[in-house]
């Protein structure tokens, strides 16, 4: 019961804040509503027994990425965007299509069971070993190769940011 109430709270606030993110005029308000989205999604992760992901969500998204967003908005004096149209001109046509597509996705998802094969990391296995430990183990054994590729991706992102944004080109 309490879990259901918590879920409804987190889900409702997430959806509401997400709508606010795209409808507010002041970009700083948008960013702050996004903060609400991130923290409440973290709440949903906790409900799913994924404490580690929840913590990462708060640290990385709410902590690092959002601060970056705010920095960029302030640097570019985002209030100039207040007078601009909020949505692309074709939105009255596009929005119903998007909503219809969402309805289709939701009806398919609600009518199909997800009783898929259970991997080796069942809820019991995760609980007995501890959340972060299981993730650490998986990351450095089964997922070692993807983990290394992900680190190369970060290197490329770093190089790319420097190449594109460095002030003085030699």
């Amino acid at each position: 019961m309490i879990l259901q109430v918590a879920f409804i709270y987190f889900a409702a606030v997430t959806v509401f804040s997400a709508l606010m993110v795209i409808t507010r005029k002041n970009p700083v308000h948008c960013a702050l509503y996004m903060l609400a989205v991130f923290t409440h999604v973290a709440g949903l992760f906790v409900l799913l027994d994924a404490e580690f992901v929840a913590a990462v969500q708060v640290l990385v998204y709410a902590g690092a990425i959002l601060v970056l967003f705010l920095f960029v908005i302030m640097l570019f004096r985002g209030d100039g965007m207040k007078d601009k149209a909020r949505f692309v001109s074709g939105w009255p046509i596009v929005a119903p299509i998007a909503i219809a597509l969402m309805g289709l996705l939701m009806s398919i998802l609600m009518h199909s069971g997800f009783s898929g094969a259970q991997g080796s990391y069942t809820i019991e296995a995760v609980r007995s070993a501890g959340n972060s430990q299981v993730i650490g183990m998986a990351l450095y054994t089964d997922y070692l190769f993807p983990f290394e590729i992900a680190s190369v991706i970060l290197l490329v992102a770093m190089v790319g940011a420097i190449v594109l944004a460095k002030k003085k080109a030699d």
Partner: protein
Amino acid sequence: MPTISTADLAAISPEIIVLCSAMAVLIMGLFVKKEWRFLLGYLSVAGLAAAADRTWAMRSVVHGAFSGMFILDGYATYFKMVFYVAAAIALLISISYVRMENIEKGEYYGLILFATAGMMVMASGSDLMTVYLGIELMALSIYVLAGFLRKSLRSNEAALKYFLLGAFSSGILLYGIALIYGITGTTNLHDIAAFIQTGTYSKPALILSMILMLAGFGFKVAAVPFHMWTPDVYEGAPTSVTAFMSVGPKAAAFAAFLRVFITALPQIQADWTIIIAALAILSMLIGNVVAISQTNIKRMLAYSSIAHAGYAMVGFVAGGAEGISSVMTYLLIYVFMNLGAFGMVVALSRGGMTGERIEDFAGLSKKNKMAALLMLIFMFSLAGIPPTAGFIGKFNIFMAALNSGFLWLALIMVVMSAVSAFFYLRVVLVMYMKEPEDDRKLTPNLSMYTAMAVAAYAVLYIGMNPSGVIDFAMKSVSGLM
């Protein structure tokens, strides 16, 4: 507890070599003086050659490494060889171009190698996780390369457009992957197929996830209706980068596309075949028809690349060892002919937009007989006229479609090829029939002409002796089936 064996490390040794060369080039770019930076391009090519040597040495090895995340098999080997060729020719084309555009940096070569490594991971990914990360590694490098001309607004626009739409399509692909993980409880391609085999899944959700993944891959191969980004990005990106991304990433996207659908989703083949057939028809139709009205040769080649994705998808629809190997052969041939065509655009360019209009080719036969002849070969090949390789590629796909009962699809392909001859041959016409607008000479350049000569030789050689390539593709595909 899984352990990593030396066999696992040996399996990824080509990737390691490419990544190490990329990092070496990055670091050396900081120290090497400007007038010697072209050597970094040759160093990158040497790195690719070393990796190709390793891959070729392991061509008969089949080894699943890293807990089923990575697979080395004939199929992956074939595509890796295609990537080495594509990246090496693109690098050779780039060397003089980047100097002219004043973007000669270690990062340029490094990013091409990083993109190549991403493509290799895509071809070898036997888990959706690895495939996805390979796609991201490749795509991120290409986004940056597309925006490498920092002062050109067109280049900025291309990079931003490609990045935003690419991120969006990655999101759609990921949504499909998440759904299929929810349905089957695994991301391993073989385990997914094994689970679907048991029959205890809900079909609508599986079809939905298949469609989402198809949309993601459709974007990467630039198939209609996911092609909107192609003309603008191809036009705005530095020409040498456009040359690379029109062949390498496209072949890599096909490599991953084919492996994921054939290995993981054979049970619903009837469902995806019909969608891919529709995409193939649309791509051939829109790509070829819109290409006719283009005046910018980069845009024309962009629409032509959409059409060629359509031809390749006809082979995909035909399926079976014959159909899939015809796609593989086609992609290799496409690398040579399209890089050749783009190489000639690079050879003509003088910075800015010059050399990009089809009119800039006017009277090329009088200015430089050799260059005009090379362009003629590449245009004939793209149009699919014998005795060039383009004909062999199309003929193989045509026969595969015919043999598996897709007569109507094969017929559409023939008709659209005939339409395509119109705009390819117009370039030839402009080169040979029109008077030159000015008397600018092409500056001879060793690396560029080496690349063009190799591409032209390959186009003619494969066109006249196709059996070697076809056998190689046929042998390579057996692991996938």
